[in-house]
């Protein structure tokens, strides 16, 4: 009854993209195996997951064809690494926005030939994918837009620029009025950079349309996450993480529609009392640094240890969709200001102070019906790691079982993580 699933290959396409075809050819097989083990081994999955499965099957082929077709029409294809880069503007220009954060150990050794070992694996992985020509999405972009959030990223952009045109958007580190002014200027520069590629200006109508499209996408994800909070949950944490990862490379309109279709199914499942796991299953919320595709390590361990992940307070998670943009802006300046206001609500630990995030975590914790919080920190991510101190304190105050995990993409620590997570589940169960 195992479903037929294969991540597809297309060597001609990869050749055209100047990839290391020989080395890359092994990747679809590896991903297929991992996906079968982690996702298809689950029982009672929602039927509407079929679409998201197919998005994984087509990640190196069909989706790339679509992106190249858009490019052939003169639409800009822009890679990003952070949820602070305003997608709405790319959408308004008819462009394609692709999240390029790396979530695989595969290319970390490539990156370590150049970058220091002691930096975030997400940055190393992404950089490694580019310099070794091992990611078709990366090969397909016209240019990438980095930002000045953490040190690892902003200094890596200087080096990445040698391999692919890399623009950098300055993100302030505080949220005062003067920071907002700086930020608006940066948003305008970003818009100008995109306009240069398309050779025309983005008008109010187009931008409003872009805002509406992304608002709709974020609202769909809000609806989905709300349904998932239903206790007992109708969908697994693994599937939820996957959908939130696919949000970074799918076509927004289609993605929105498919998420709603899934939501409709989940609503029925909730009514019919058809949960994905027995009601007694312990519920765990995860907070912290993003988990980029195919980083499924933590969720896989948690759920295979018999618990369910019920929320991700993360950029590949609620930080991406918890806020939408007010739509009452009329003039260009007005719309851009509203847009910036939305982006200022993102509570990344690169900001100081960032106490709003602590409150946000507690709010989501309550909404999700979780029984414990695991804070996930990618190794060498200092800002999230230090902020975990405040999270721990808040959890102690609220009587929330808390555990901080620092990990990278290597399989070395899986045994130890398993023990810690099982012990955490025992702790929750009392």
């Amino acid at each position, binding site marked *: 009854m195992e479903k037929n699933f294969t991540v597809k290959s297309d060597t001609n396409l990869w050749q055209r993209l100047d990839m290391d075809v020989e080395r890359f050819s092994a990747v679809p097989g590896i991903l297929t195996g991992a996906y079968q083990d982690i996702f298809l081994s689950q029982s009672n999955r929602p039927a509407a997951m079929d679409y998201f499965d197919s998005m994984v099957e087509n990640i190196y082929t069909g989706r790339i064809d679509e992106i190249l077709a858009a490019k052939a029409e003169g639409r800009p294809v822009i890679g990003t690494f952070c949820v602070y880069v305003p997608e709405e503007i790319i959408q308004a220009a008819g462009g394609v926005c692709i999240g390029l954060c790396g979530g695989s150990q595969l290319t970390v050794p490539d990156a370590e030939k150049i970058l220091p070992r002691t930096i975030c694996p997400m940055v190393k992985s992404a950089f490694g994918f580019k310099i070794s020509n091992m990611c078709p999405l990366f090969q397909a972009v016209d240019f990438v837009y980095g930002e000045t959030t953490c040190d690892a990223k902003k200094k890596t952009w200087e080096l990445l620029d040698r391999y692919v045109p890399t623009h950098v958007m300055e993100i302030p580190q505080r949220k005062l009025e003067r920071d907002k002014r700086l930020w608006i200027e940066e948003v305008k520069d970003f818009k100008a950079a995109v306009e240069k590629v398309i050779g025309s200006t983005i008008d109010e109508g187009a931008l409003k349309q872009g805002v509406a499209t992304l608002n709709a996408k974020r609202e769909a994800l809000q609806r989905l996450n709300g349904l998932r909070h239903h206790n007992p949950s109708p969908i697994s944490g693994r599937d939820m993480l996957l959908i939130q990862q696919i949000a970074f490379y799918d076509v927004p309109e289609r993605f929105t529609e498919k998420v709603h279709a899934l939501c409709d199914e989940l609503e029925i499942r909730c009514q019919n009392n058809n949960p994905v796991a027995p009601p007694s299953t312990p519920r765990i919320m995860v907070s912290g640094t993003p988990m980029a595709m195919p980083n499924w390590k933590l969720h896989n361990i948690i759920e295979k240890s018999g618990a369910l992940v019920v929320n991700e307070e993360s950029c590949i998670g609620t930080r991406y969709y918890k806020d939408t943009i007010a739509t009452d802006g009329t003039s260009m300046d007005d719309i851009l200001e509203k847009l910036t206001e939305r982006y200022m609500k993102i509570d990344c630990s690169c900001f100081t102070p960032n106490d709003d995030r602590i409150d946000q975590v507690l709010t989501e914790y309550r909404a999700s019906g979780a029984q414990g919080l695991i804070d996930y920190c990618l190794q060498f991510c200092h800002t999230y790691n230090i902020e975990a101190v405040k999270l721990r304190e808040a959890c102690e105050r609220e009587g929330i*079982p*808390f555990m901080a995990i*620092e990990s990278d993409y290597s399989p*070395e*620590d899986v*045994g*130890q993580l398993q*023990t*810690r997570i*099982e*012990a955490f589940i*025992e*702790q929750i169960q*009392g």
Partner: protein
Amino acid sequence: MDIGIDLGSRAIKLAVVEEGRLLSSMVVGSSFEPHKQAQQLLDSYQPRLVAATGYGRHLAQKHFAQHVITEIKAHALGARRLFPGCRTILDVGGQDSKVIALDTAGKVVQFQMNDKCAAGTGRFMEMMAASLGYSLDEFSRAAGRVGETVAINSMCAVFAESEVVSLRNRGVAPEVIARAIHRSIIDRLGTMVERIGLQGELVFSGGVARNRVLVDLLAQRLRQPVQVPEAPEIVGAYGAALHLAGIP
């Protein structure tokens, strides 16, 4: 009669328990196929139930154990039964070390494990003893013979080894170096305990707790007595057996 079995990275520990009382226990070095070895050990008993803990717990469940619990919970149960006032446990095993905090009722509220690194583990002790040409016993006896010490700064096994070599080349007596290593381990373990916040009685478990010098240094560092069970290495296995008590 219930049996708790702790399949650790370096040794297998077994505890036979009847109505909460420890009847007998056993510690053997683990071989290449620990679950087979464990099964042989079990063959001489007719336990009602078997609970496994430690790194090999899931393998044990596949083959013979009806129940599994983590080392964390097992130590909490075992230490608490031996020392009812216990609120903090420091367990130093072959490959890892951990600190567990309990609430007044004995429930685990927090724990920390030493990740990915040999520092502050039994393995580290062995490596350091070997670098001085001592057996483990000689190593702690040597450290107990001197009061003075030099500083060993590195807790990384590789770097610590080269520090030892350079101290020896400077003519520092091996006893003094041995004491310095003990002290550096206690610095590391003491910090782990303090990070979690020491409360109530502290129980030190794991084979490493047989080392009197470490126990004394730890008590000095934390400024409070340190409780060491009679057989510190079987606390986990004992706890696993106790876990079975309520299970029909």
